[in-house]
């Protein structure tokens, strides 16, 4: 199995969780490395993804400066969870407002660790 395929399968696993709409692996400069979306995603999520792409550089710098492993934002009826994968990449999970954040946080952290082995 190639590394690229390994990452996509981890992201696909994430979107199978209830309330998770999308999972995107960003490089810290905002470039998308890989992504997975629920088949029927709303148009609203695109606005949130755009926000993520525009802000991932700022967020990752903040996380690095303050040694934060994860950061959560709530906006546009979604919650966005950023989790550090390695020096260069950051895993972003987008879920609905009603998502169980504790569970999501544990699962995102686990996936971050799994993805980091491919990078």
């Amino acid at each position, binding site marked *: 199995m*190639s*590394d*690229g*395929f390994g*990452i*996509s399968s981890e992201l696909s696993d994430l979107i199978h969780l209830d309330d998770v709409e999308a999972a995107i692996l960003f*490089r*810290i*400069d905002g*470039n*998308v*490395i*890989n992504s997975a979306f629920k088949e029927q995603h709303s148009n609203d999520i695109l606005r949130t993804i755009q926000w993520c792409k525009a802000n991932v550089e700022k967020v990752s710098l903040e996380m690095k400066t303050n040694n934060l492993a994860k950061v959560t934002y709530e906006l546009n009826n979604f919650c966005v969870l950023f989790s550090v994968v*390695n*020096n*260069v*990449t950051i895993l972003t999970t987008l879920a609905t407002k009603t998502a169980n954040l504790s569970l999501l946080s544990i699962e995102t952290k686990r996936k971050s660790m799994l993805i980091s082995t*491919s*990078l």
Partner: protein
Amino acid sequence: MNMSITERISSGIEGLDILLQGGMIKNTINSIVGSSGTGKTTVALAYIYQGLLEGDHTLYLSFEETPSKLIAGAESLGIRIKEVSQNFTELIHLVESEKIVEFMTNILPALAQKLKHKNVRHTRIILDPLTPILWEFPSEKEQRKVLTKIYQHLSSLGTVLQTVEEPNAFGQTDIGAIETRVPIYLSDTVVHIQNLGLGGKYNRTCKIVKSRRTAHHEGIFPMHFAQGSGIAIDTSSIQVEYNDPLVYDTRYNELMKKVKQMSKDKDPKKRIIAQIAKNLLNDRQEKGDKIELVDALTSPQILQEVKK
């Protein structure tokens, strides 16, 4: 837009031809944009090396480094230019900074005309780096005027690969910077190479910003310096997703070999069939069907019928 009639040449960079759906389109302007130390010159050296292997005419214009330094750099990465070129010292031309304007506006167009009259089949032209030329013409308006003229001459002569230095501040890169705007705007293909300097697989990457007449692959792809080819791009993620017959299918490769052989045949009818087959194989929209069609078209029975 018909993408099937475009003839492509190999870039010589492992993985880049896959991202560009078969290589660079002949007689186009291709830019490699990146900050210092990303590997732009290595890409240029691999491109010239591939040209030498394929028997193309080459014209490498260096605006900074001396030919001996460039060749030594290539050899250190296993790009054995000395082995394939007898006159390797004449392969790279150093254009001194005070002669840049005269060279680009007068000598180069004249040289292009001369080569055209010599009936050279195909030329690979390298401008490495383009940046000193841009500095000579500070306004974007002037840059556009001069570059348009130069590109017209050069693209009629062959396939151009130019490297463009990108401003770099605190490890970050800026593809939209004023310094790179005009060459990016005028180029047919722009490849952005980056090095964040933080380590890891996605630290050094390659991205196709644009490629006219090509349904190129999107996204960033890991890149690394490799002994032998200079630079290699990891396209394993797309190789799994799409089984692109253009590159991986052995049947495609066999057919392409057969078609190439046919294109050299004395019989003009066979050469026409070879051209049709080549065009069909270059079309990636209905790859499976096209391979079947070419297989039938180049079968001995059909060729016999054509001969009759």
